[in-house]
């Protein structure tokens, strides 16, 4: 029973990081209809910048702030200088459907190579802002550490800020409107192109946080965020790719589920477990857990 509770807590901490990644993917998908595979690259570059700041100043939170800023700038830049150009050459022919997906892949490769050229391939680590030794309750030390707690708190703070932005501000309203019905939003006087770029910036910042938090308990390398991207995508699919709440719930479920597999069965099945979840969701409930009978729009 105690082990189950510990597994649950660790899973919550892992899942909350997945939640940020899947939220970033969902934000871009809603506004642009592109699954942005470059998100892993953007998050990685922001994390490297955060890592540089954090290791020079030895202040984790300054690094995190810089990673958020870098991620937001990068996200806006990708939309402004890259996606807009791509859609201007609005293509026809056999490659029309696949062009945006392939373009984000190319961008992922580009950012990875640039990071590799600057920082090289060796593993870096960021000094964690809190202890990674588990809490001690009475006689026993549990695997759940202050760092895990800090991750959960940070993520939930960010989620609350995002919820306030999206539900209580004009910016949030125009973001939602341009995602839901771009043409009507435009008629209502919303500058949808600019709003979309802001959406990309928010997604980029959120991705930067995800990268920093993952790296605080793990290593950073040009390839270290690939698995985060995959699990973020699976979580977003569980939530239906459309729903922000759904993607967060999906990520928490996925994080807890994978940690249960990890603790009770073994590491070898973690990835297979994630993949099976993805296939099962796609076959059984392709609209995700938040769908109310509405058909998938893809």
């Amino acid at each position: 029973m105690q082990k189950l509770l510990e597994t649950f807590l660790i899973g919550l901490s892992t899942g909350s990081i997945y939640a940020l990644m899947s939220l970033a993917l969902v934000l871009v998908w809603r506004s642009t209809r592109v699954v942005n595979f470059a998100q892993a690259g953007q998050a990685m570059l922001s994390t490297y910048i955060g890592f540089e700041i954090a290791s020079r100043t030895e202040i984790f939170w300054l690094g995190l702030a810089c990673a958020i800023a870098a991620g937001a700038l990068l996200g806006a830049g990708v939309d402004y200088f890259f996606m807009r150009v791509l859609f201007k050459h609005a293509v026809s022919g056999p490659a029309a459907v696949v062009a945006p997906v392939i373009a984000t892949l190319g961008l992922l490769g580009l950012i990875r190579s640039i990071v590799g050229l600057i920082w090289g391939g060796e593993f870096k680590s960021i000094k964690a802002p809190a202890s990674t030794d588990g809490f001690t309750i009475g006689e026993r030390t549990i695997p759940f550490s202050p760092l895990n707690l800090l991750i959960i708190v940070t993520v939930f703070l960010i989620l609350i800020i995002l919820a306030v932005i999206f539900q209580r501000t004009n910016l949030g309203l125009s973001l939602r409107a341009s995602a839901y019905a771009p043409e009507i939003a435009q008629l209502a006087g919303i500058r949808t192109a600019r709003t979309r770029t802001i959406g990309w910036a928010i997604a980029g910042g959120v991705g930067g946080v995800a990268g920093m938090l993952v790296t605080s308990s793990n290593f950073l390398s040009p390839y270290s965020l690939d698995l985060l991207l995959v699990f973020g995508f699976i979580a977003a699919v569980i939530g239906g790719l459309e729903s922000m709440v759904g993607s967060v719930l999906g990520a928490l479920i996925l994080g807890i589920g994978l940690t249960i597999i990890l603790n009770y069965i073994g590491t070898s099945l973690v990835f297979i477990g994630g993949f099976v979840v993805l296939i099962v969701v796609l076959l059984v409930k392709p609209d995700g857990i938040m769908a109310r009978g509405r058909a998938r729009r893809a």
Partner: protein
Amino acid sequence: MRKKIALFIFLGWVLLLIGDRVDELRVYQGAQIAMYAIALSSIVLLTGYSGQVSLGNGAMMAVGGYSAALSLNNLGSPVWFAFVMAVVVSALFGALLGTAAARLSGPYLAGTTLALAVGLPEIANQFAFLGGVPGILFDVGFPPARFGEEFTQYKWFFWIASFIALFALFITSNILQSRYGRTWRAIRSNSLAAELSGVHSGRMKILAFTISSALAGLAGAVMAMTISLVAPGAYTLSLSFALVTGAVLAGVSSLPGVVFGALILVAIPEVADVLANRLGGDENLNNYLPGLIVSVLLILSVIFTPNGPGEKLRRRHHKKM
């Protein structure tokens, strides 16, 4: 049909002559080009014709490579049978995945296959019978003695790889020109209209996925042969990216283009090597310059000539007429 057979036999003869005249390194690269040509034709069939995106062809190549090696080492089968096993096992795997994929569109399929490409090498690391990180040996043996002393190991690889590639491209080009090829194009252009004309689009998509996986698996076995090894490190995400790039550069819907795409994929590391040495030969430069070139080419071509350079020329030609 008879003309096509003659053409392929002629191509084979030309390849034999070339194989005799160039040095060891070029022969090895020739085998690589043949391998990439098979792998790219699997993407042309899947993306260019049936309109499904797969980012997981590298993973399918891994399935082929591992099944060939396991069949050769554990079952003690003859070499040709190992290649057959690669095709059969990866086709089965593809059919299984295709059943799920046929119901997925665009981003879902791309994400699922991406997950496969990231995850499959990890899985190979976890299981003992797959050899872990160092992988397992795949040794097709020395060339037959009757070819003489001069006949090197790499030339033998080149012969096998070219023969398989010519055979695979011949079969593929026939499939693409058949009823199936036409049906796939119909589904890609307008799946609703195709269904109304009596096409069972789900079944046809699964078929495309199966054949494409079989081709990728065959390419994986050929790759395993040229490096005498199957290991997770050979079938990385970068391989899947490189394949997509090669297919886009070649023009996703042109089968002859795959040879051009394969040539570029083999040339990029060479060019990058020369460039890196000229720029100072720093270790990071050597490791990441090829990736940089691949990604820049991919981005430029997907923005400016998404249907391949051939397509654009053809269109210009049409306008003039």
